[in-house]
């Protein structure tokens, strides 16, 4: 889409785009370029000189079992977060869509966790599941289940998944509710007259009509789980125990800043760059389609 | 106050030329209507006068200045848009005052001019309202007011009434005309509605496919269309068009009437207005036709017929006259002066009276 009418001025448009372009160039393109550049070098042990190694960093990276494990961890983490937060949100949205009285109040009470920072969400859940004093740890102990996410990798994963999903429910809820309310009432009434029960109607009529929203949220949630949950992991587990919660983004940080392995960290950045590009393209294609429909 | 001169105006988008050289002169204080079907280039022409489109070729002058390279604000014009283009976040007062504020007109004078325009347009009670709180007709008046307060040399109207309902359109039409007369400002008005063009214009420019087909006073254009396009576009129902058939060197119309004395080349056609044809008994006219159906409209009745040559022909008769029934055979008669001949390219030749020896 283009404007029919435009202004003409020899320098004003350049002045207007300049701030954004300068910041983009300095803080986006230059670092990205450096990441690609660094990924092809290894610094000597004193950090004084670097040596060109081509794809050796990548070969080393993919032969590293920890890195390959991190891929699996990320995949599992993303799937769990996406499925858990989306299904809970859909359940809430379906109910909120049914009530006529008080739906505004319900919405208010359900959306505010969106405003909680992932790192703060991490602290809240860490407190409840504290191995020694946490209220939920205690409750589980009463039922004979022992909780210590500092030692048990599976429990650590469960905890970061819970905290990350909890924070994302509001977002999914809002979009599902908007999607549900956009479905024409007549379609559902027609199904009701045809004799379909509530759940039958939901699965055969409502859910299929909701599929654009669902697909959109799927992509957004995967991106969220990949990149925005750093704060949750960093506050709760620091990637442990035994790297059981080290997702890719956490590993870039840990290898680059804690391990000071710049070549490997740069190579990981490049891998992430490729991943996020793929996700963005998927998201963008989807957005394009939504515009046409 | 100013006149407008258009000299061989052309407009191209890339390689596609959409306006093919238009010459016209608008007298000071004259009301000119540019009329034509959608896509004929009439709005583009107006927007070139306004300075909203660049002129690819030719010269636009307002008064004695060539304005091709001037910004709209430097041309001393005001424009009324089809969708009114009111600034939604400004009150009616601010909408009208905006241009004056930019021109650094003193505050008291702005107030005086806006109040005066509002009084003229009966908008005084609404000065504090936002455009969305107004009806369509009121918004239209605000758009007019915005043009008036600037006291421009030229008013430009781009289909200003097409978003209004039929009744309001008739009323606003009269108001626009009266206002223009009172202010004596040169006006250029674009519309696709030929009734609007006929009623408003001192002179009109009939455009088609980027060409000015004819320029002239409404009744002159109506009576003497220079092209088949104008003949069909101006007038409702449009002028009847009858094909001619050349038999032994003589042109025949309607399957029976020989246009004697002169030959019309193959492919030429004869045009005649519905009110210039009369019904007579079969066999008593120039040629016969069969009645398809009749539309009694009260003041008049339109009799739709089909000639033996297969052309459809509408006859306008008095509303109180007895009209024939479907299937009746009738004879058709017309004064040869009213039969207009056009060549195969649609250009006017001359009326048959001129052709007859």
């Amino acid at each position, binding site marked *: 889409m283009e404007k029919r009418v*435009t202004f003409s001025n020899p320098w004003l448009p350049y002045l207007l785009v300049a701030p954004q372009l300068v910041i983009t160039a300095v803080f986006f393109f230059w670092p990205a370029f450096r990441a690609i550049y660094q990924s092809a070098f290894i610094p000597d042990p004193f950090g004084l000189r670097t040596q060109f190694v081509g794809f050796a960093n990548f070969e080393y990276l993919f032969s590293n079992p920890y890195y390959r494990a991190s891929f699996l961890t990320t995949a599992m983490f993303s799937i769990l977060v996406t499925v858990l937060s989306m299904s809970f949100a859909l359940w809430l949205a379906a109910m909120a869509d049914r009530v006529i009285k008080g739906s505004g109040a319900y919405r*208010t*009470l359900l959306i505010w966790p969106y405003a909680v920072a992932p790192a703060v969400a991490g602290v809240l859940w860490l407190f409840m599941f504290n191995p020694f*004093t946490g209220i939920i740890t205690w409750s589980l102990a009463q039922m004979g289940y022992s909780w210590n996410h500092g030692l048990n990798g599976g429990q650590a994963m469960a905890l970061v998944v819970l905290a990350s999903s909890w924070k994302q429910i509001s977002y999914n809820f809002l979009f599902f509710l908007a999607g549900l309310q956009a479905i024409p009432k007549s379609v559902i009434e027609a199904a009701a007259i045809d004799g379909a029960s509530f759940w039958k109607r939901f699965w055969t009529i409502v859910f299929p009509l909701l599929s654009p929203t669902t697909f959109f949220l799927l992509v957004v949630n995967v991106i969220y789980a990949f990149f925005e949950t*750093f704060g949750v992991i960093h506050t709760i587990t620091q990637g442990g125990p035994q790297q059981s919660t080290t997702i890719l983004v956490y590993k870039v940080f840990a290898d680059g800043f804690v391990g000071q392995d710049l070549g490997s960290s740069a190579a990981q950045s490049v891998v992430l760059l490729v991943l996020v590009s793929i996700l963005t393209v998927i998201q963008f294609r989807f957005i394009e389609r939504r515009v046409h429909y | 106050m100013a006149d407008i001169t258009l000299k061989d105006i052309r407009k191209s988008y890339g390689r596609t030329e959409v306006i093919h050289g238009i010459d016209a002169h608008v007298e000071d204080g004259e009301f000119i209507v540019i009329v034509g079907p959608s896509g004929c280039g009439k709005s583009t022409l107006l927007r070139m006068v306004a300075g909203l489109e660049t002129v690819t070729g030719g010269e636009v002058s307002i008064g004695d200045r060539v304005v091709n390279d001037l910004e709209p604000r430097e041309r001393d*014009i005001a424009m009324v848009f089809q969708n009114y283009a009111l600034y939604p976040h400004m009150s009616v007062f601010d909408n009208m005052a*905006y241009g004056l504020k930019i021109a650094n007109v003193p505050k008291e004078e702005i107030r005086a001019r806006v109040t005066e325009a509002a009084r003229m347009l009966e908008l005084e009670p609404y000065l504090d309202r936002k455009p969305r709180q107004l009806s369509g007709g009121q918004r239209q008046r605000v758009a007019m007011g915005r043009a008036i307060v600037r006291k421009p040399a030229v008013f430009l109207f781009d289909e200003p009434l097409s978003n209004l309902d039929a009744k309001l359109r008739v009323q606003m039409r009269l108001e626009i005309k009266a206002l223009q007369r009172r202010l004596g400002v040169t006006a250029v008005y674009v519309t696709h509605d030929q009734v609007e063009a006929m009623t408003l214009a001192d002179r009109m420019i009939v455009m088609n496919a980027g060409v000015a087909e004819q320029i002239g006073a409404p009744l002159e254009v109506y009576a003497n269309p220079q092209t088949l396009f104008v003949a069909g576009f101006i007038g409702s129902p449009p002028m009847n068009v009858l094909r001619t058939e050349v038999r032994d060197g003589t042109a025949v119309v309607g399957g029976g009437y020989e246009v004697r004395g002169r030959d019309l080349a193959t492919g030429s056609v004869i045009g005649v207005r519905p009110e210039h044809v009369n019904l007579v008994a079969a066999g008593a006219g120039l040629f016969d036709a069969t009645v398809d159906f009749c539309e009694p409209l009260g003041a008049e009745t339109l009799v739709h017929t089909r000639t033996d040559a297969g052309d459809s022909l509408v006859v306008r008769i008095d509303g109180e006259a007895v009209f024939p029934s479907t299937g009746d055979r009738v004879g058709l008669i017309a004064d040869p002066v009213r039969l207009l001949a056009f060549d195969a390219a649609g250009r006017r030749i001359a009326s048959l009276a001129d052709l007859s020896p």
Partner: protein
Amino acid sequence: MSGMVERRGIGVWLTHAGLVLGIAIICFPIYIAFVASTVDQAALVTPPMPLVPGGHFLDNYHEALFVGANAPVWLMLANSMVMALGITVGKIAISIISAYAIVYFRFRFRMVFFWMIFLTLMLPVEVRIVPTYEVAAGLGLLNSYTGLILPLIASATATFLFRQLFLTIPDELVEAARVDGAGPVRFFIDILLPMSRTNIAALFVILFIYGWNQYLWPLLVTTDPSMNTIVMGIKQMLPTGDEVVEWPVVMATAMLAMLPPVLVVIFMQNLFVKGLVESEK
């Protein structure tokens, strides 16, 4: 309102009950945090902790605000506020003017610039952590507000949002403004900005939350505790070793860290929903 067929009797109550249960699950962590911020340390070290608020509300919040761990919480709140507002205002400002240039002007490299901005969508800070840190360090931006704000204010999303908005504004409005004598700057200030008010406000809400909740970047660029933001500061209050965690103070800090963005969401709910739904289109 409802997309579902009206329900009667017990179905309605079941739905309400389900919603209340859902809200209880969602709110439980916050409630527990609030309770923990109102009791003393002794009440928390021996489980189970109490489930009703205690009487140490003022003590804990006073301690958090004015003593804290590395830096008093009021200072971290102030830092967060500066960062969040800086990011929000900066993003909106540079996005709206670049979108204006791209929509309302024709100039060389216009599409190149457009795609350059678009590409930044593919470069979240998490992906380019180390090199971006190096650039910021090289420019001497560590431990400064500029360093906290500047690298985060380029935003393709906001630019797209404004571009989308501008494309829906009728062309005649620009023409009317030009006939009225407005040049590009006046048109932007007098017409476009006021017409974008609601969208700017909606975006403001979303971006404020985004800015306030930044974690990784402040963690990297602020080593000086007096420059810490509240969201990263909480983590610093959790010692890594065997030291005893002052949970009541930590939870009071957590409550304070959540307060500004949560209030923004609750009190500007409609703008927030509008901003969220539109910025994802």
